[in-house]
């Protein structure tokens, strides 16, 4: 069964069309890269999927069930987990408590003891186990990014919405994180990944969806996308980015 099916989703904020008739689907175990220039509506699309913003029209179905209109906690319980682009740790709680929240109230709704165990596991996966008793506020940015990911993974979701998890990480850390994504995907978890690091997106994605001004302008394999003139044009607003994009994608 299709894991996530977004059909004709439009989202308006007053006169501003943030999402314009967007459709795409994700299968279990598939990694979809979501790219587009700044302000294209990528994060907004995540917010629409997990119920933070109500959509204006269209439908969103998760495992065949309509989830548009559901509050975000209900969507989370069905098995949709996400990370935030701007990290949002629960500052006054420890790293482990942060992750335990994800395990307690996510898809599996684990009891506290089982959730603690799941949180240690998730912290191990992202390489943050040694920091588990620190307050989340004390982590640096790259650690907070990992915390976001651990919190999402601890819920053992069916679908992971990863919003710029790689930004600000060094080359080693990026490689490690991509390893995490591969492991997660092997467990039949679908992943949608917003990312500006083109080589990363092109390397790990099964499929790439391109947004520009709220509309989907292209979708296809990384090879197709990197040679699609519409995509290159969308990035041409910033020639440097276009150049880098083309170079990195090769």
């Amino acid at each position, binding site marked *: 069964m299709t894991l996530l099916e977004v059909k004709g989703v439009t989202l308006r904020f007053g006169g501003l069309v943030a999402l314009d008739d967007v459709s795409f689907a994700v299968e279990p175990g598939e990694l979809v890269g979501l790219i587009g220039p700044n302000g294209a509506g990528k994060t907004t699309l995540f917010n629409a999927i997990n119920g933070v913003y109500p959509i204006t029209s269209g439908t969103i179905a998760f495992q065949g069930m309509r989830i548009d209109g559901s509050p975000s906690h209900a969507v989370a319980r069905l098995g949709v987990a996400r990370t935030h682009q701007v990290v949002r740790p629960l500052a*006054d709680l420890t790293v482990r408590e942060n992750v335990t929240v994800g395990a307690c109230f996510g898809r599996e709704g684990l*009891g*506290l003891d089982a959730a603690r165990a799941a949180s240690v596991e998730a912290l191990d996966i992202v390489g943050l186990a040694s920091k588990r008793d620190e307050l989340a506020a004390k982590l640096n940015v790259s650690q907070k990014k990992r915390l976001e990911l651990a919190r999402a993974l601890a819920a053992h979701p069916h679908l992971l919405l990863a919003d710029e998890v790689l930004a600000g990480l060094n080359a080693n850390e990026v490689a490690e994180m991509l390893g995490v994504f591969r492991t997660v995907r092997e467990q039949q978890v679908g992943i949608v990944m917003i990312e500006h690091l083109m080589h990363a997106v092109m390397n790990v994605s099964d499929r790439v969806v391109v947004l520009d001004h709220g509309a989907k302008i292209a979708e296809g394999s990384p090879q197709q996308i990197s040679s699609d003139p519409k995509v290159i044009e969308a990035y041409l607003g910033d020639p440097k980015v276009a150049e880098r994009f083309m170079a990195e994608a090769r």
Partner: protein
Amino acid sequence: MTALRSRFLWPLLGLIALVAALPLVTNAASQREDFFLIFMLVILASSLNIIMGYSGYVSFGHIVFFGMGGYVAFWLMFTFQTHLLVAALAAGLVASAIAFLIGAPILRLRGAYFALATIGINEAMKSLVTNFEPFGGAVGMFFNFSVYDAYGGARSAAQLAYVAMAVVALATIFTSFVIKKSKFGLALMAIREDQDVAMVLGVDPARAKVQAYVISAFFPALAGAIFFFKSGIIEPGPAFELLRSIEALVMVMLGGIGTVAGPIVGAAVYEWLRSTLITTPALSSFHLFIAGLLLLVVVLFVTAGLVGFLRHRFLAVRRYVE
């Protein structure tokens, strides 16, 4: 529940029970009066901490549940000669029901707006009761002395009130601890830190907050029932006294917001300070001034309060004291 195997909870409750038994054994009436008041303040502060410390919703009008509880219980005892313990339980349930009804709309408000709404509710309740004839209106209600005969005379009625207050204080602390160490408590703390993130992680904030509010309303109502039973008189002014609400807030801040031990320490220290000041002739009119000053110092310099400060500072404290 692993939380109940705590090395902190049982010694703490045991210690408090021992302290509570002291004036009963030595038959020291004035000490019993002091402890009675401290236990009442512990109940107010500790229950306030559940909504304010764990969930992050600062309530200035927490005293409304004390007043409502006092009134409901007093009316039951006065009209139907209901036994104190039954009347107190009924009062607790009524207070929780009121919290359930007003909780859903006001807990949507954030920050200062919630705090203001709680003051409004307390003032509204006060004027409602002042104009409500079955509760005696502005004059209130008072017992005929013979009411205490059913409890074996005024002396043993006072003793019953004392024991009841101590037991309710223990129950409040127990509840506070269990919440803090539970999945429910984790949800509350996640909401306190960032409600939107909590929601994305699967926490239903509306439900968790109303539950916390309902629980936090129950205990002050019991305290109100017992307190006014012992006084033998209830009036709108003392029942819904905003000042006492603010004092409870100071106790929570002073002892350590969001900790289990904090409100206990805060209540004891605050009451000790207040009674010391009030019995020192030169300072007797300054106790509120000093309370305000204390709050300022805590908010500015030791935001974590006494217990919070010690927990931050010493690993051993953090390991044992919640």
